[in-house]
Structure formats: C-alpha cells, structure tokens
C-alpha cells in the first residue's frame, strides 16, 4: 500500500461523502419547496381577497331579496284566482292589491288591506197572485207582486246598512216607470237605513223604515213570503195601496232594551218627516226628500216579551203628527195602538187594535177611526191554515181618508210550504162595507224568496 494513494482514497471518500450529502439534501430541499408551494396555494385568499368575499355575500343577499320579492309577486297573482271561485249568494270581496316591492326585501312596505272591500248581501222576495173578486170593475187577473230586493251590508262591527228596493207595478200595469210626480218612485226604495248598534240598550237607525206602530208593521215588510196571509190587514196596508197608517217614516229612530229583568221591556222612539196628507191618494205619501212642513212626526212604543211566556209580546205605541192637507186646515194626527201577539214557530195569534184620531186645527172636529184585527194560524206539517178577522171604521167625513169608511170581515186561508223558499197560499176574503155590497174575493198566491 503506497502512501501517496492514501490521501487520495480519503479525498475520494470525502468526495463521495460530499456527493452523498448533496444527493440527500437536494431531494429534501425540493420536497420542502413543493410542500410550501402547495400549502401556500391552499391558503385562503389574502386580505385583498376578503373584499371580493364581502361583495359576494352582498350579492347573495341581494339575490335572496329578489327571490323573496318574486315569491310575493307570484302569491299576489295567484290570489285573484281564489276570489274568482264562485260561492252561492253574497258577492265575494276581491283580494287586496299587493304593493310592488323593491330589490332589497327589507325596504318593502307592508301590504295594506283594500278599503273598497265590503260584505254586501242581497236577498230577494217576490210573489205572483191569481185573484178575483166580486167587486164591480175588478177582473180576475194574475198580478205580479212586489219584487223585493233586501240588501244588507255589514259596514263595521257597529254599523250596518239595510235596504228594501221594491219593484212594483201600479194600476196601469207598468213596472218600474217613473210617474213623473214629486216623491214618486217607479222603483220604490221602501226601506233605506243605516243602523248603529251601540249595545243592547241603544240602537239607532237613520233613513226610511217602517214606523213602529203596533206589531205587524215592524214584523212584516214588503215580502209576502214571510207573512202567513196573502195580504196585509187593512190597518197596515201600505200608503200607496190605500193604507190609513203612516207605514213608513223618514227620520231617526232609537230602540233598545229597558232593563226590566224577565219582563223583557223594549222601547222605540222615532222622529221623522211624517207623511203627506194622503190626499189625493196618487201622490207619494211618504215624504222621502221634502217635508211639506217643518213639524215632525213622533212615535214612541214600548213592548214587553216576558220570559215566562215564550213567544208572547204585548206592546203599546203612540204616534203624533200634524198633517197639512191641501186647501184644508192642519190636522193633528194621533195614533194609539196596542197589541198582544203570541208567536211561536208552529202557532201564531196576532191581535192588534188601534185608534186614529184626527183633530182639525182651529175647530173642535175630531175624527176617531178605530180598527183591529185578529189573526190565528197553526202549522200542521207543511200546511198552515189560518183565520183572520179585521175591522176598521172610518167616518164618512174623515178628512184624511174618507174613502175607507167601514170595512170588516173574515179571511180564511191555507198556506202550504212547498219548499224552504216557496209558499203557496189560498185565501178567501169576505169584506163587508157600509151601505155597499160585500165583496168576496179569492186569491191564489205563490210567494218565494231567493
């Protein structure tokens, strides 16, 4: 072994060692660099990139707002189809309109209900009659009765609107034609009032209504379907049919309970225009718009419905007005009425009596016209036979209704409820008159509601 080779071997070994070192370190270096690069790449965005993230969030929120607005729009478009679904009877209120919404849902105004929505209900009544009598000049004929549209609307919890619009024909066979005279409706608005109900003790009405004289006038209106008989008693016939009472009043009425325990007392207090003097008869007797004088008519009534006897009502009313017939002195009109009625679903017995007192101003002339009727009926299944007797005796010189005179007589009839809404009635009337031949009449009527 030569000495000179030894250092070279060592040098070679050193060279080999250095090479090994480089070979081993380099892969480590490369691997670390690659790892660092990968880590850097996986690192979330730098601070500059948080701004785009915020923007992205903002855009997302805006998009959510747009989608919410679109959903709202679609829902509102769908609502009219729900309103279009037909329902029987009353008209349906439409869907309240939805306001347009902005892109950002937060700034959208809340939807508002539509002011124009109401809850209107219309109910109709009508009848057709075949009648004939023995009075000279009258022919047996079919007559269209009043077509009565009963309209109500619940304005609010306390207020309600009620009206009866009646299409009626006159003796000239014409329907719905304006007669061209003052206070005349071809179409009659028989009732037209707004009711305010504060509580059970105070209800106020304003408009045109049936005067609270007696029982029949407030219990039965312009629908023959409701009443048992084919027609109203003489006493309570409508003014334009020759009735002697102020059936309608235009004014203000208050009514309600009187605290009386089981006695069930009620009161009515009314003030209104009163009626025109009724002479001549073809003028509109109800003063709807114009009063022929400033004096108002007053009416007070009180009646009891005792709990002990279910169905019994006993009442009294007093009416006072001042009439001003043409070419005549004024006539004070006082109407006193009393009633005792017993009404149950299967039985009724109505008894009313009244006295109409006319006193001519400036004279001592007083004209008293008494009248009464009694009506009784009982339900037997769908059949309801009835009997009525009525009486009115007016003086021949009665200044307001001289044509009434004495009338009295029975009526007997049978009502048959063909369905819940249709009633057939057959009635015979015998009316005795003063110094005239009695009139017998027969009527067959079909009354209905719709």
């Amino acid at each position, binding site marked *: 072994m030569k000495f000179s080779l030894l250092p070279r071997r060592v040098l070679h070994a*050193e060279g080999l060692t250095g090479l090994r070192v480089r070979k081993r370190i380099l892969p480590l270096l490369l691997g670390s660099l690659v790892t660092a690069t990968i*880590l850097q790449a996986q690192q979330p965005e730098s601070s500059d990139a*948080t701004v785009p993230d915020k923007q992205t969030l903002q855009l997302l929120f805006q998009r959510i707002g747009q989608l919410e607005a679109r959903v709202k729009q679609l829902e509102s478009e769908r*609502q009219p189809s729900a309103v279009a679904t037909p329902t029987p009877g009353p008209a349906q209120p439409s869907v309240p309109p939805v306001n347009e919404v902005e892109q950002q849902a937060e700034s959208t105004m809340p939807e508002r209900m539509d002011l124009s929505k109401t809850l209107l209900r219309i109910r109709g009544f009508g009848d057709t009659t075949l009648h004939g009598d023995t009075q000279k000049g009258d022919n047996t004929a079919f007559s269209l009765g009043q077509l009565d549209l009963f309209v109500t609307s619940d304005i609010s919890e306390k207020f309600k609107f009620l009206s009866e619009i009646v299409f009626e024909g006159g003796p000239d066979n014409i329907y719905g034609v304006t007669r061209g005279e003052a206070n005349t409706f071809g179409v009659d608005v028989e009732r037209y009032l707004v009711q305010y109900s504060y509580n059970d003790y105070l209800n106020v009405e304003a408009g045109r209504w049936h005067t609270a004289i007696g029982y029949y006038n407030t219990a039965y209106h312009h629908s023959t379907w409701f009443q048992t008989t084919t027609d109203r008693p003489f006493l309570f016939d409508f003014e334009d049919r020759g009735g002697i009472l102020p059936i309608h009043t235009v004014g203000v009425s208050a009514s309600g309970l009187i605290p009386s325990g089981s006695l069930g007392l009620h009161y009515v207090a009314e003030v209104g225009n009163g009626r025109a003097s009724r002479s001549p008869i073809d003028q509109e007797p109800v003063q709807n718009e114009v009063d022929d004088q400033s004096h108002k008519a007053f009416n007070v009534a009180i009646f009891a419905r005792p709990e002990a006897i279910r169905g019994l009502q006993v009442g009294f009313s007093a009416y006072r007005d001042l009439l001003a017939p043409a070419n005549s002195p004024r006539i004070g009109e006082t109407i006193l009425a009393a009633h005792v009625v017993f009404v149950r679903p299967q039985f009724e017995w109505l008894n009313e009596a009244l006295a109409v007192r006319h006193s001519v101003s400036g004279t001592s002339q007083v004209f008293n016209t008494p009248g009464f009727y009694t009506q009784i009926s009982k339900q037997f299944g769908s059949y309801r036979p009835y009997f009525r007797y009525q009486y009115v005796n007016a003086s021949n010189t009665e200044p307001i209704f001289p044509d009434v005179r004495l009338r009295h007589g029975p009526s007997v009839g049978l009502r048959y409820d063909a369905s819940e809404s249709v009633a057939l009635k057959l009635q015979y009337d015998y009316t005795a008159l003063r110094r005239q031949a009695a009139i017998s009449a027969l009527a067959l009527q079909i009354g209905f509601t719709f």
Partner: protein
Amino acid sequence: MRRQTKHLLRRTTFGSVPLIDPLLVSIARYSSTLSFLAVLSVVTIAGIFVMRDVKSTNIEAQKMYAGSVLGLHRIGELQYEAQETRRATFYALTTNDSNLQVEYADQSREADRLVSEGIIEYLRHAQMPQEIEIGKRLQMDWSDFLEVRNEVLASILEGSTKEAVNLDQAGGVQSFDRVRQDLGEIKRLYNEQASQRLANVVAGSRRFAIRLITVLVLTLAFASASVWAIERSKMLAAIQLAELQMEFVASVSHELRSPLAVISSAADNIVDGVISRKDDVQRYVGVIRNQSRQITDLVNQILQFASIQDGRSRYVLRPLEVSQIVESVLGNTSELLQGAGFVVERQIEASLPGILGDLSALSQCLQNLIVNSVKYSGESRWIGIRALLADSEDRASPEIQIKVQDHGIGIARSEMPHIFEPFYRSATVVDAQIHGAGLGLSLAKNIAQAMGGKLSVVSEVARGTTFTLHLPIARRQDLQMAAGAIESTPTIENE
C-alpha cells in the same frame, strides 16, 4: 511526516471546523439515533403547532357556521313566517266561508307561533348587548303586531270587513313595518359578524401556513444539517481511520527500517571485511539475529492482528495452571528482561484453581504486557507479576487475576480510553520515539476476551501502570470435557 499528512488531509476536507469536528466525531457513534430523535422532536413540535392552528381554524369556522350562517338562515325563516302571519290574515278576507276563515286564522297563528319561538331562540343565543337590545325590541314590536293582528282576525271572522281593514291600516301596517325593520337590523348584524369571522379564519389560515412553512424550512435545514453532520462524521471517522492506518504503516515501516538498517549495516561490515575478528563477527551475527527476531515478532504481531480482524484466529483450549502460564511468559521474555536489566518480582498464590485457555495465546497476551512495561518503564527497572484469586466484578464466582505492574512513565488519563485501540500510540510516546506498532494492547485485549476474560488497567503518570488479566475459573465439567476432548481440540474463533 505523519503530521504533515494529517494536516494535508484536514485541509482537503470541507475546511477544518474547530470545536464542531471533535463534537461530530464524538457523536458519530450515535449519529443515527440522535438524528432520528431530533427529527422526531421537530416533527412532533411542528405537528403540535399545526394541530393547534388547524383546531383553532376549525373552531372559528364552526363558530362562523353556527353563529352567522345558521343565524342568517334562522332570520330568513323568521322573515318568511312573519310574512306568512300577515298573508294568512289577508287570505281570510277573501272568503265568506267561516270554515276557511278559521283555517286561515289557524295558519296565521301557527306562523306567529314559529316567529315567537324563533325570537326566543334568538334571545337565548344572543350574547352581545347590541344583539340583546335588538332582540328585545323585536319581541316587543312582534307582540304589538300580534295584538293588532288578533283584532283584525276577530273582525274578519265576525264579518266586519271594513273594521278589519281600518284596524290594519291604523295599527297593523306600522307595527309590521317595525318588525320588518328589526329583522333587517338583525340580518345586518349577522352579516357583519360573518364578515368578521371570515376575516379571522383567513388570518388564522395565513398564520398556519406561515408557521407550517417555517417549520418545514427549519425541518429541512435541520435535516440537511443532520445529513451533513452524519456524512461529515463518517468522513472524519474514515479520515481518522486512514490516519491511523497511515500511522501504523509509518510506524511499521519505521520499526522495520531500524532493524533492517542494523542488519544491513552489520552484513555490509561483515561482507566488506570491516570486521574480521571472530568475536566481532559473532557479535555482529548476534545483532543480526536479534534484529531479525524483532522483525519476526513485529510481523507476527501484525499477522496475529490481521487474523483477529479477519476472524480467522483459532485457540486451543486446555486446562492450564496459572504458574504454567507465568513460567511460559517469563521464559519467552527472559532474554529481553535480562538484556534490559529488569528485576521481575513474582507472586503467585498457592493452589490457584485451573483455567481453560490457550497457553500460547495467554503467553502472548502476558508477553505483550511485559514488553510494554519494559518499553514504558522509564528509569525504573522493576516489573512485578502477581497471580491471585479474587472476586469478580462481573461474575458471581471468583476469578484468576494476573497482574503485570511497573513503575514506569504511566499513562495519562486522556489516553486511557484509546490505549486498547489498534494502531493507537499516544503523542507522548511518539515524541519520546519509543518503538511500537500500536497493536500489542489491542492483541492482548482480544486474547483476554477470547478466553472469556478481560484486560483492565490502572495507571498514574510518572508512578507506573498495572495491567490485570482477568480469567474465569474453569468449571469442573469444562475441565473434564476439555480433558476428554483434547483430541477433538475445541476451538474458539476470534470474534
């Protein structure tokens, strides 16, 4: 020459690194374990940091989801149900059928129940004062709206449509608008929180990445340094080995050159007729013979060392007496001792038990110790040989100890770990120009270990050195086996 070589070697490496090179050499022995532990520590520490960052980022992301994302979802649902509450009320207006109206009223109430529950849930989760304030305001406004809504529903169901419309216009619209504004405010709050949390997550991720990169770079640097250190330590070890080998060669060369020079000179003189007298010739022949023996001994040592390294040593184990060994050794070294004028003091305990060993090997071992004592005796001319039975530090049974003691120059404490290394010669000895190949003690130790014993040393500079050969006592069955199997010649291969 050797120093120049060493110096040259060191200059040709990566540059001499004082302090670090000795450290590297010393840690070269445990380089792999140390490197593994170091990398493991770094990776563990890095992993802890990474896990901590990942965990905190995960928690932040969860907070963001639970707090902001879910919160926005809840507010969206609240807004929808609030609209449903109002919508169902409107729908009740579109029909007169009480059954349908009741159904719509039910829908409205169900929706408002969900909103009320949602508001309570929101207040339950609200922590910041601003959140609580908005939540309470929303609760109050919602309650106000519900009061109006209840009245509106009652009016619709009673049939008072106008009344219902008026109520809604008077109070419902404004109160619902307030509710809507409150919900919008809460949404904006959630939005801000989400943005803040997102920023936190981004910052956390960035920190995590930086840390990870730093750790990886550090790990790479450390690994590189470790690899460099390992390779350098290996290189230094190789250099050191080469240096030792060079030293051995140089020493052997020097050891061979001296007697060869003497032999050559004596032969030249004889051949040239410089000396003619018979006495002188005999003297010169004697010198030639002695030098030849010295060379032979050196070569034998080298060969013996080589055979040990190659694993080709064969020892014949026989039962031996200690006195037998001592006599053999003294016989082999008598000429040397007499020639150097040494006095050998023998103390061999009586009735020492026998041992199992190779007589020639053991003789060689003790001979090397005695030769060293002669070489490093300094001014002293005394050697002591003592054989005794003593307790063993390593075994439960006692052992035979043969001590070779001198009063020579001694061995420095710093040299002690190296004296049994092959080719090792201390600087002091080299400077004193004491001959030797540096193999004697290495051989002696190998032989002692091959015999099942060991070689120990106690020394003090300028006071002397005592080498002790520790040999196990032969067991009876080993002796019987050895006696019965002498023909088969059990051998021990040098490990």
